[in-house]
């Protein structure tokens, strides 16, 4: 933890660094199926008795008994499929029922203002949950410039994530194809509730 703190900008608190780590964890797992090395890293995590902690425990347990190949197949059934997976983790889809809609347009506008640009190698639209988590983590610790002030993070969160993310994570928990990804849903759901609650404490 001391090592991690040394690389943070001075204005990022320990609590905010923890938030960034959770967003990073979700981003890595939701962008692509985890490698064997990453799984080994997850397998040693432990949580407390809270909802979030129980999710972490379950994820770690799942990581210890799963193979990268099995998780790869699960990931493809959940998110890729033939044309579409079981779930469509896009803000536009959850909010409007269609892909590539106004939520995506609004997101691109805000991304531009915040100095965030879609990677040239990324073929899917930016309003997917993995990318949004990546954006939150980057804004918190300052990967796209200076760390973004919490009030601005709050605006971004309530505009692009809060309207639908808990609903998506809940769907992930209950998805037919999900086994390893069930606790990812739990962790996401619990963390979204924490974020909502904590953002509402300011201003």
């Amino acid at each position: 933890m001391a090592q991690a703190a040394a690389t943070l900008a001075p204005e990022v608190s320990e609590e905010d660094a923890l938030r960034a780590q959770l967003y990073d964890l979700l981003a890595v797992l939701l962008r692509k199926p985890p490698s064997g090395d990453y799984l080994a890293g997850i397998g040693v995590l432990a949580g407390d008795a809270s909802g979030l902690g129980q999710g972490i425990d379950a994820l770690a347990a799942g990581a210890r008994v799963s193979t990268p190949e099995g998780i790869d197949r699960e990931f493809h059934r959940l998110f890729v499929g033939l044309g579409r997976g079981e779930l469509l983790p896009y803000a536009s889809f959850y909010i409007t029922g269609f892909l590539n809609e106004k939520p995506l347009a609004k997101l691109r506008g805000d991304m531009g203002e915040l100095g965030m640009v879609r990677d040239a190698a990324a073929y899917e639209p930016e309003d997917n949950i993995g990318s949004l988590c990546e954006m939150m983590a980057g804004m918190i610790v300052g990967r796209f410039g200076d760390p973004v002030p919490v009030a601005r993070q709050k605006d971004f969160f309530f505009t692009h994530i809060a309207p639908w993310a808990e609903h998506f994570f809940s769907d992930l928990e209950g998805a037919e194809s999900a086994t390893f990804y069930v606790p990812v849903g739990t962790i996401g759901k619990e963390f979204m509730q924490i974020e909502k609650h904590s953002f509402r404490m300011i201003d």
Partner: protein
Amino acid sequence: MSRTQDDRAVKGRRDFLKLATVGAPAAAAATVATGGQALAAEPTELGYTETPHVKAYLESCRF
């Protein structure tokens, strides 16, 4: 809002976060989150060779 009220709100939020995120152990999470998987600039793994033909098709689908 007065400065002391701002500070109280910020401290309240930090205390809440400290309590709420204690379920996610920091040290291990730090290693896991940054270890091995570069998020931003990784090449797409499509399971087949990305010939110019394939790239052109994908480019045409890009929204």
